[in-house]
């Protein structure tokens, strides 16, 4: 079977990288739209992911019911969290540093609360029993849940692309990214779009936390890690660009898995180099008033 040629430790790691990249895309897609559309650099985005991961841990019962419950709760928590963030940054329009500090403050409050409620030790989240095992790919065993996650991730990618690039709502969002002033002049309610994007980004981040909990489990500090990686994705992919976010997330996913396996210790430098290249190519595209 020709599959055996494809199946070696590197392709297995690369497959891990795809799962990781799709998870990062789900988180970073929300952040890139939030930064691009609402102009809010939300330092609390990682906190939302962590909230989702803890939700998955708390509601997991080994069956599909727990996962469905957690997802339903994620939509509520994400919407409330996004709306809350919108309310917090509303008085801080045109004060980006104020927004950063306010969302950072919320991230601190959230981290302390998580510590209080869920304890300081890392929690491991098991996927539903039906997909908990592993499947044989050639000579290797691969976790079924990770394959399922890749499938869900691909569906999410297609759905998000359709939403942003084909639907009317997406056209409105892209219009606000491209030129907020002109969008407002043509009668679009940019403030409503901003709130909508914050809510949507919040739902995506919390949902990613629920689905991604078996991949990146909940523990203190995960919020910062996830935030750092997703904003590297945003910087590399360009703020407000969903295509860029997808490519960057897949690339970062490969660097963090395959890159670490091939050349251990250099991953951090490859990420820095990727940011450098992205910033050089789009030299000064991010001056005030211009979307990157």
């Amino acid at each position, binding site marked *: 079977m020709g599959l055996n040629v494809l199946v070696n430790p590197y392709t297995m790691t690369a497959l891990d990288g795809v799962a990781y990249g799709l998870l990062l895309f789900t988180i970073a897609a929300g952040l890139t739209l939030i930064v691009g559309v609402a102009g809010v650099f939300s330092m609390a985005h990682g906190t939302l992911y962590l909230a989702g991961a803890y939700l998955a841990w708390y509601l997991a019962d080994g069956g599909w019911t727990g996962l469905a419950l957690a997802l339903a709760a994620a939509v509520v928590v994400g919407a409330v969290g996004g709306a809350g963030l919108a309310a917090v940054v509303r008085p801080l329009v045109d004060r980006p540093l104020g927004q950063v500090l306010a969302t950072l403050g919320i991230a601190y409050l959230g981290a302390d609360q998580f510590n209080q409620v869920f304890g300081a030790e890392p929690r491991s989240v098991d996927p539903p029993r039906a997909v908990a095992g592993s499947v044989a790919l050639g000579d290797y065993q691969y976790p079924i849940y990770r394959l399922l996650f890749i499938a869900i991730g691909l569906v999410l990618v297609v759905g998000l692309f359709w939403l942003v690039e084909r639907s009317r709502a997406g056209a409105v969002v892209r219009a606000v990214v491209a030129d907020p002033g002109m969008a407002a002049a043509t009668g679009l309610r940019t403030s409503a779009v901003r709130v909508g994007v914050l809510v949507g980004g919040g739902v995506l981040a919390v949902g990613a936390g629920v689905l991604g909990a078996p991949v990146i489990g909940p523990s203190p500090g995960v919020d910062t890690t996830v935030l750092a990686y997703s*904003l590297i994705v945003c910087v590399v992919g360009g703020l407000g660009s969903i295509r860029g976010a997808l490519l960057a997330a897949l690339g970062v996913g490969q660097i963090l898995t395959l890159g670490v396996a091939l050349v251990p210790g250099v991953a951090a430098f490859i*990420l820095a180099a990727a940011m450098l290249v992205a910033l050089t190519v789009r030299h000064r595209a991010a001056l005030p008033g211009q979307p990157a």
Partner: protein
Amino acid sequence: MSATPASVTTGASPRRARRLPRWSLPTLGFLGLAAAVALPWLVNGYVIALAATALVMAVLAMSAQLLVGWAGLSPLGQAGYLVVGAYMAARVATLTDLGPVQVLAATAAGAVAAAVTGSLAVRARGIPFLMVTFGLGELVHAAANQWAPGGSEGTHTAPVAALPGLPAMVRPGWVYLYVLACVLVIGAAVAVLVRTRFALLLRAVAAHEPRVQAAGHHTGRLLLAAYTIAGGIAGAAGALAIAVTRYVSPADAAMGVSALALAAALIGSGSMLGAGAGAVLLVAARDWVSGLLGGHGPTLLGLCFLLLAYLPRLRQASRTLRLPRRRT
């Protein structure tokens, strides 16, 4: 970042009316200095250790303030250079226990690290600058976990000696006084720096970059120089940090440390002394007050950040400077 409206810079005249008498600032400074020197004889060892930590953070806040208050750029990765300096000082500590040598080596290491990574950071402005420096800080954090001696456990160092011939300092009071002396020297150097023509050019870049370019200055190089100097100051803070704790770990590069430095610089709103005071205030809130309340340091710090975000003065903090008698 959106451009600051031109009208805010003209608001200086009403403030002039209620300026304090000429002798008040030197007197206050002298009293503060006397209190700082007398502190080890007044409070217990725990508070002295906290005060030494606060002084280290004050140096890191000055490093951030050079970028925030002068260059108009908000860094969120200064702790990365602190850790670079701390590891360098820990490396030098295996050769000599002389504190000043360690500080110089750490300053050089921090400056080199900042010069290398700065070429990346100074391509961005405003919030993208903040994102890039945040990413850089996290990358230093990750790299320290993998490469630094001791890995994520960190590494311990021997006590430092202040001058050749003196015994190594073990008691917190002496360490505090050594750190205080170093902070005063660094502060004096920074005070000279911010009165140079270079600092004026930085403020000009922050105010209107294209105009500075049109006047024939290479703004990218100016900002890179500022970033390098800021990295050097942060590196010096790292050497002082291991003098205090005798320990360095990758956790010192955490985002929280950088965020504290940035917030302190914003509290200082355009003044170096203010940034240092802000750092002392935030460390006091995080460690001392939370100790009195039984934990919840992060919550207190988060509330401080929220409060700071909604204070109206922050509006102009990064772009303008309102202290009297500064050459502008």
